């Protein structure tokens, strides 16, 4: 790890954990504050990514679009009540260009259904993130979740 990476490692790791904990604790709105205003949050299958196909099931191209998606989840969309648990591992800063840190991590999301208690591995894959250091600390310029399976179990309404 270069000295530059070493300087920011704990803060970047913490940023990734903050995102996961906000969702798991049902404070989903808070993740939009971890994105710079012009940042991008994308959830895309590895299947599409490996074939250079651009389509992503979630592609919020600003913090405002992410807030709109969360608002839609809260007041418009219908789904069976459930919650997530994120397991995050392997956080690494793998590069830096013009002040943008390239970060990789693995994620696993277990979904628990509220009514019957069914638990399932809902999604697992790699995060390919770009992080910038702002006056308020590190923030995501881009969060890209590449999920490994080509299928989504039923629906993805709570952001991962």
């Amino acid at each position, binding site marked *: 790890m270069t000295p530059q990476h070493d300087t920011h490692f704990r803060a970047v790791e913490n940023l990734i954990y903050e995102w996961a904990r906000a969702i798991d604790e049902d404070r989903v709105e808070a993740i939009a504050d971890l994105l710079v205003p012009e940042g991008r949050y994308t*959830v895309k*299958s590895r*299947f*599409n990514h490996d*074939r250079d*196909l*651009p*389509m*992503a*099931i*979630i*592609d*919020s*191209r*600003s913090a*405002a*679009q992410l*807030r*709109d*998606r969360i*608002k*839609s989840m809260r*007041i*418009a*969309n*219908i*789904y*069976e009540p459930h919650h997530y648990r994120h397991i995050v591992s392997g956080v690494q800063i793998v590069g830096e260009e013009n002040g943008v840190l390239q970060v990789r991590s693995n994620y696993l999301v277990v979904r628990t259904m509220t009514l019957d208690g069914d638990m399932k591995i809902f999604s697992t894959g790699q995060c390919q993130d770009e992080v910038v250091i702002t006056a308020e600390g590190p923030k995501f310029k881009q969060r890209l979740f590449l999920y490994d399976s*080509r*299928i*989504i*179990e*039923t*629906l*993805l*309404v709570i952001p991962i």
Partner: protein
Amino acid sequence: MSTANTSCHEAVMHGPISHKTPRTWPAEGYTRAPYWAYTDPDIYAQEQAKIFRGKTWNYVGLEAEVPEVGSFKTTYIGEQSVVLTRAEDGSLHVVVNRCAHRGNMLCRDAFGKVKKLYCVYHAWNYNLKGDLTHAAFSHGLRGEGGLPKDFQLSEHGLHKLRVATFCGLVFASFSDEVEPLEDWLGDVAQGIRRVLHKPLKVLGYDTQRIHANWKAYHENPRDSYHANILHTFYGTFGLSRQSQESGMTLDKSGRHVYFYTKAGTEKKSEDFDKTSAALRSVNDAMKLEDPSILKWRDEFGDGVSVQVLTTYPSFVLHQIANSLATRQLIPRGVGESDLVWTYFGFADDDDATTQTRLVQANLAGSAGMISVEDAAVCEMMQRAMADGQSGESFIEMGGKTLESGGNTKLSERAIRNFWHNYRLDMGIDLDTDLDLA
């Protein structure tokens, strides 16, 4: 252990009890669908033969997915894995993905490019049309072994399906009797022609695994009644409201349907105002901070903002603003289905148009802000049906006949027509117990 428990235990041990369950279709006919039709494994097994391998055309992909000689796509018709290929002369072929020798699966990749189809088990080789060209050691070695003298390569090709294309869509059929594809589509063909008017470019895939019987999903896009009620997003942002100019077209047989809505054509009426005030789908609290996602262009020049088209038994084509996609329904057992969304644009789209389509891909599919509800409702229905041994759905919105309801979207006419065709294909007569023993 109580006596009751003992006898119950013995019934299970010494069964068979499965065909003692009621399987009488309600006397009302196609205005009712008994819940056992969604839960019974025997019914499911018959559907594979009588519907998916029966007299139907099933969507298998886009011509654009197999653009070159040797391109292939592995997909499903019903539960059967099939392969779509493009041969040296440019022709398209669909074969069962199973070696004619001992049944091993030939293609294990979703897409690819090959010179031939090859079985790894005993090196049986097939050309891109599915003809057997070579079987390893067919003449034996040093006069021993080998296939019988009367073995003919030409008699051991892959199981070939009928193939037909329409506007870049590829359909296949196990049936020699089903009418030509365009005749089968009838008046619904014009809804396809309207959207798919030039060469396509695939943008990506999304597959939803829905824990519900395939019919619970198939009914959903035929159901224009629910769209503006369940999906809050539609009504709130004016993409599709019941007060707008809209309509529905069925083919003569009632197998296929499409409906459309024209945004910005609201007609005020007192009864609409009264009803919509009570709908949860019209939600004034739902204002978008960044409404650019809903900015759409009338690219077909007819004002239609949403068109959803369904062909029996497993295909949907949607235009939601500028988002275009096919949906392929793949049953995976009586209570599970995959819905494969293929998003596309046109080959000559500029980058701005492609970006619009990609942004609007947020609206539908497994994470779709408009329609994430559909899969949830299918699963909740399946769970509420429980073992399916009691209850039936009531399908009389718009009337009780195959014609009633006309072209209004406030109608379940297309669902009645589905069950009518389903019962014909399954050989289910009114008031007659099914013989499934």
